[in-house]
């Protein structure tokens, strides 16, 4: 530990050594910091780190051994992958954020948290939300929007608990004994206000039952809102709070003030202003309007400046202290964390360039990219924080510095073994997808060839994940030993003078300090204004201007049975492996729509609540899969994918052949769709069940001709209905040619 000062000693303050040397100093107040909530969040982040990463390892193994889903629907990739992402983002990183904020905020504000009760509600509320996510996601209760899969009651709970966090944080800031808000607090404030805005806007959904809802938005609009959310969840959940933690814990651990406070001010405003605009870079070459794509690219490229400004600020804080880095595992973790942040934030803007995105998007490159951020930046900074805080809270030295170093090296190797195979796989996929023969046909016309080629890379990736997880277990052992040997200090005593009331800043004081740095409410409001402007300019025009989503008259609402099948598609998380977005590239139209060569048009998605464009192609795109194969192909393929596609790593879905599709809820679904503007005829909700049954019967009879006996009530029938409809509305239509010209 470099901070040789014992915390309680540093708090004991005499009037002589007080810089202000005035009468206020005599009025020192004694108070205590709440360590219990911090400790609880630290335990939670560790436990859910282990859980979330173990689930990650499980899904990684399923790429190599699909049977690792144990033949159960609850542990199949499409349901467990959202569990992994939600667990590591909201449980592991989320609890990490709260632990760091509760520790640093009290000390930076020189006051105890505003309310112990709110702290308790916040802690337990958040854990209950995580628990409900862990139950509902494997059950297939999902809204089908990436990183926002949780259903509406949980969404409401998240909003409420987030407000509790905000009130507790703001109450603390308002009763502070340090007038100046240190830069870490600005990042916390921006995090709170922006995540609240993102979560509420993206979670607009129409409930139709206790655990089922439809996104308020459809198609292109849903995609834009979702990726505005998704991108900024990365920005304001995985980045800004961790930058705040960086600005606090790096000085603490290295015993040096931040390299440039000037830079941190520019860093803050520039980062929050620019980040919010960059969301559309997740939708390049999609059916999103061009102007929105261009906006996303420009702001993404600009984002390098504040990101690297922050990274350099963190790294340069250690200038002249590299000898300490050699000895301290904590600083090593921090250096690699910041370096990974720098790598990921360079890579991000590069991937946002349209020509690079054409190669990287939908491939494993993106998975590599996010894990540099996730494992390196978030993971390692959390580990550093844990190694720093647990000994402090238990009044003890770390059990073994050596084991911490072992963890560091295993973890670093884990990142390397994870990332390099993913980059390799990503480029391999892109090159194979786009490879043409001289006669203009695809070299790898069977998508499966591009999958089997990279399975060794998937195996290496799983090995990397395993290494990383072993490192975490080493850490858990080390921290438990540390805690056991010490005694937990639930409170830390401190003294500080209260702020003078009615204080007026001198006239010559700088405007930024008067307006923001001493005024937390101003900071909150203007942070919100800053981020809201980007969101409004991006999103509102898509809602306002008709020409952004050209409607195609032949595109009709789904039939009752197809709608039901679509809900099964959403439930099974098919979007985690299959996209529904054929980009306007020669190789994609030839591969996915060889007959008509049609890429995906915005107007085709206007009834899609939620959109299902996906972000990764482990399997082929499905947007034009309708009528490509006979019903019987889908039947056998869903029952045993390898029977139709030998070598496929898609898991079988036997439960679809046992479970009946839900009839009773259909009228509610139709009424909900009508509310959302889908033009089903008046009174259709009364006929919908009969309509669905009739279509199911036709499909079952068709299958009987191929010697397949199946009840029309089974879920597979509804799913086949949906799959056979996909992308068929615009086949051989003159109007489409016109839209293409426009």
């Amino acid at each position: 530990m470099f901070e040789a000062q014992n915390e309680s000693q540093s708090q004991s303050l005499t009037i002589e050594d007080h810089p202000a040397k005035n009468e206020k100093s005599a009025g020192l107040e004694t108070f205590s910091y709440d360590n219990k909530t911090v400790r609880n969040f630290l335990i939670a982040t560790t436990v859910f780190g282990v859980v979330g990463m173990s689930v990650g390892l499980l899904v990684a193994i399923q790429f190599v051994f699909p049977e690792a889903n144990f033949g159960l629907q609850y542990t199949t990739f499409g349901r467990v992958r959202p569990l992994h992402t939600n667990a590591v983002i909201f449980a592991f990183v989320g609890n990490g954020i709260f632990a760091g904020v509760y520790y640093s905020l009290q000390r930076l504000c020189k006051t105890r948290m505003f309310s112990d009760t709110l702290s308790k509600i916040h802690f337990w509320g958040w854990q209950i939300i995580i628990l409900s996510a862990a139950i509902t996601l494997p059950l297939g209760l999902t809204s089908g929007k990436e990183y926002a899969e949780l259903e509406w009651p949980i969404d409401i709970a998240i909003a409420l608990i987030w407000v509790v966090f905000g009130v507790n944080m703001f109450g603390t800031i308002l009763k502070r004994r340090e007038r100046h808000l240190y830069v870490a607090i600005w990042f916390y404030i921006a995090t709170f206000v922006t995540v609240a805005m993102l979560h509420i806007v993206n979670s607009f959904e129409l409930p139709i039952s206790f655990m089922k809802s439809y996104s308020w938005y459809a198609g292109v609009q849903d995609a834009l809102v979702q990726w505005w959310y998704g991108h900024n969840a990365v920005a304001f959940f995985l980045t800004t709070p961790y930058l705040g933690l960086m600005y606090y814990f790096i000085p603490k651990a290295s015993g040096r003030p931040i390299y440039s406070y000037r830079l941190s001010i520019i860093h803050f405003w520039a980062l929050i202003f620019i980040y919010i605009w960059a969301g559309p870079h997740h939708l390049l070459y999609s059916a999103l309007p061009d102007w929105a794509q261009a906006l996303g690219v420009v702001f993404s490229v600009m984002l390098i400046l504040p990101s690297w400004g922050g990274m350099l600020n963190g790294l340069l804080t250690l200038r002249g202290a590299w000898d300490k880095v050699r000895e301290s595992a904590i600083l090593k973790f921090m250096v690699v964390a910041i370096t990974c942040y720098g790598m990921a934030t360079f890579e991000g803007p590069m991937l946002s360039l349209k020509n690079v995105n054409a190669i990287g998007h939908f491939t494993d490159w993106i998975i590599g990219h996010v894990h540099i951020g996730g494992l390196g930046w978030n993971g390692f900074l959390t580990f550093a924080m844990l190694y720093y805080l647990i000994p402090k809270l238990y009044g003890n030295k770390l059990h073994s510095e050596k084991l911490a170093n072992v963890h560091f090296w295993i973890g670093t190797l884990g990142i390397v073994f994870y990332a390099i195979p993913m980059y390799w796989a990503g480029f391999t996929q892109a090159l194979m997808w786009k490879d043409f023969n001289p006669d203009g046909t695809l070299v790898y016309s069977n998508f499966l060839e591009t999958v089997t080629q990279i399975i060794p890379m998937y195996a290496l990736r799983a090995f990397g994940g395993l290494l990383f997880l072993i490192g975490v277990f080493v850490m858990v052992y080390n921290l438990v030993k540390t805690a056991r040997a010490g005694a937990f200090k639930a409170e830390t005593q401190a003294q500080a003078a209260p702020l003078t009331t009615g204080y007026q800043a001198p006239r010559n004081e700088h405007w930024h300090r008067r307006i923001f740095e001493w005024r937390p409410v101003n900071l909150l409001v203007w942070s919100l204004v800053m981020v809201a402007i980007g969101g409004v300019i991006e999103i509102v025009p898509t809602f306002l201007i008709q020409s952004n989503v050209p409607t195609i008259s032949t595109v009709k609402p789904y039939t009752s049975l197809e709608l039901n099948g679509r809900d099964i598609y959403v439930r099974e998380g098919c979007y985690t492996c299959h996209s529904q977005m054929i980009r306007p590239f020669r190789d994609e139209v030839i591969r996915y729509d060889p007959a008509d060569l049609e890429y995906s048009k915005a107007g085709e998605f206007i009834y899609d609540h939620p959109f299902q464009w996906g972000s990764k192609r482990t399997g082929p795109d499905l947007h034009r899969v309708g009528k490509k194969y006979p019903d019987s192909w889908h039947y056998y393929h869903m029952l045993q994918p390898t029977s139709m596609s030998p070598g496929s790593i898609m898991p079988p879905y036997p439960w679809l052949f046992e479970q009946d599709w839900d009839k009773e809820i259909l009228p509610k679904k139709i009424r909900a769709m009508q509310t959302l503007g889908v033009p089903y005829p008046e009174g259709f909700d009364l006929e919908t069940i009969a309509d669905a049954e009739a279509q199911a019967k036709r499909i079952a009879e068709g299958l009987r001709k191929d010697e397949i006996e199946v009840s029309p009530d089974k879920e597979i029938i509804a799913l086949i209905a949906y799959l056979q409809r996909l992308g068929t509305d615009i086949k051989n239509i003159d109007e489409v040619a016109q839209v293409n010209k426009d």
Partner: protein
Amino acid sequence: MLKFIKHHMETISGIEIYPIISFLIFFIFFFALIFYVVRVDKKVFSDISKIPLEDKTTDHEEV
């Protein structure tokens, strides 16, 4: 819901000026921000940046 907004936006005369105003606001804000951080007394910032390190009270209004 958003239809209402649409109608109102379309009926605002001279709505084209708004992007220019926004650009100016942000340009001026960041310009002033840079001006501020360059001009500020070094001692003030060095003092503030030590807040996490000193668990003592620092009275910035007195500095």
